């Protein structure tokens, strides 16, 4: 006759100590979870420390308000970041012009009009579009969009702000579309039915009920997409050129903050040179821009959320 189960349990509990495991595991998991915090601290510290070194060589105000970015000049290097910011904003502007109407229209179509079957086809397409590596988009901008643009507008140069802008726009369409669609889908069905029952057309329901109700989510999606566009690197590195400039020209070569960091990293600016530190100063500026956008997006979606 075997011993009872309770006896066997008592025996095996006596042998090994579960309590030790139960005490250690949470500590290990907490340490693992703090890696993400350490990463953030690492990013901020890295950027600050190296940027401070940069400012010992280049005055802060020259960097912030300087209108010329000429880091590679042998005679007198100049580090005024405005041209890089303007370059970034040009590409972002074009991207927003392309992506916002298309992205929001697609979101409205998906949430208000499309049947379940159509959604089942279109949503994966958007997912694929979101999953295409940016290097592929960059190649597409350089070898397809730019030549097509040049065929129509001969004044456009091989490197310009328009082509990468359009392609960055294509890249962020899925983000706007799917986040906006989430916001619209969370508008309760009963509200829509209420409007339909009064004789509204589908368009009127979408435009006067759903979009206003989901507006905070839609705006947040656009702000997040802008943040992505600002931080986008490979498309602009391949197709926008490397000419920092402050003017309003979109047809010729420009340079963005991200593309500058890549340009320096590719070359062999030695460790410890001013150029080396300049990529951290530019990276810091970029980081501030994207963080402000992300915090803004979080604020918008929290502050203006509709209560149903």
């Amino acid at each position, binding site marked *: 006759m*075997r011993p*009872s*189960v*309770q006896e*066997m*349990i008592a*025996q*095996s*509990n006596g*042998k*090994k100590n*579960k*309590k030790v495991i139960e005490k250690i595991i949470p500590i290990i998991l907490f340490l693992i979870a703090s890696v993400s915090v350490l990463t953030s601290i690492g990013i901020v510290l890295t950027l600050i420390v190296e940027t401070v070194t940069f400012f010992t060589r280049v005055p802060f105000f020259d960097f912030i308000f300087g209108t010329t970015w000429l880091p590679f000049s042998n005679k007198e290097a100049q580090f005024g970041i405005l041209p890089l910011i303007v370059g970034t904003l040009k590409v972002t502007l074009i991207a927003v012009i392309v992506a916002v109407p298309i992205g929001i229209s697609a979101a409205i179509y998906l949430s208000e009009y499309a049947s379940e079957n159509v959604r089942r086809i279109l949503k994966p397409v958007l997912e694929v579009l979101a999953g295409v590596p940016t290097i592929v988009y960059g190649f597409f901008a350089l070898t397809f969009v730019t030549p097509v643009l040049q065929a129509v507008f001969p004044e456009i140069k091989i490197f310009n702000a328009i082509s990468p802008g359009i392609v960055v726009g294509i890249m962020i369409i899925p983000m706007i579309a799917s986040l906006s669609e989430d916001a619209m889908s969370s508008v309760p069905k009963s509200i829509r039915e209420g409007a339909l029952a009064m004789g509204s057309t589908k368009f009127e329901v979408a435009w006067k009920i759903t979009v206003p109700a989901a507006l905070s989510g839609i705006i947040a999606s656009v702000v997040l997409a802008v943040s992505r566009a600002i931080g986008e690197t490979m498309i602009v590195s391949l197709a926008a050129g490397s000419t920092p400039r402050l003017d309003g020209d979109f047809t010729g070569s420009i340079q963005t903050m991200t593309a500058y960091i890549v340009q320096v990293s590719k070359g062999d600016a030695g460790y410890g040179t001013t150029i080396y530190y300049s990529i951290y100063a530019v990276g810091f500026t970029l980081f501030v821009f994207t963080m402000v956008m992300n915090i803004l997006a979080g604020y918008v979606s929290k502050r203006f959320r509709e209560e149903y």
Partner: protein
Amino acid sequence: MTESAKKAVYETKQLNLWYGSNHALKNIDLEIMENEVTAIIGPSGCGKSTYIKTLNRMVELVPSVKTSGEILYRGRNIFNHDYGVEELRTRVGMVFQKPNPFPKSIYDNIAYGPRIHGIKNKKILDEIVEKSLRGAAIWDEVKDRLNENAYSISGGQQQRICIARALAIEPDVILMDEPTSALDPISTLKVEELVQELKKDYSIIIVTHNMQQAARISDKTAFFLNGEVVEYDHTDTIFSNPSDKRTEDYISGRFG
């Protein structure tokens, strides 16, 4: 066994429980006897589920729970610092409202308890699985499909698998929290018959919102209202000759 020779498994003394600021159990005093079926009845929100979950300290999974008073299990206060919840729950099994088998095979479901408590021997596990399934009167229905997923059988069968799972560690007490509320009448009947069978070897505490069920299967019944025990007595007495007006009103269906 005669009435006088029976011992108490649970003695609850001046138990109070709060969810945050909500006073859910008030000055509960109850003595629960071994090898009996004790039913706990009352309208929803009366604290009956909270009480049964306090008996194996599952209630502590809800954040912000506070308790005072004592619950003695076999003479030992379960709120004592050196009383591990795992040890308590190894002695006290539980069956829940909704059948909740693990998404594993039927065999692995039953063997889960013995395994986590260190029983690895395949032969012994086989023996335990068969004995538990027989104990839960479901062996004949599932003996040829032990390796199938437990979700492939009916809800009523799933609930009996859950009972078998609780039996597998040969507990002293089985807590049942409205075990038939999600089942059809025929499955309910089977579980009720099973409870009658099980009380030979186990002490059973069952929460039910179904008064007929309490009348059918229990030896003692406690009537809870607004977190208090209104009346606790032999089931026959409670249903035929209640001493409190509120008990009578509830039993005759005037509220609840």
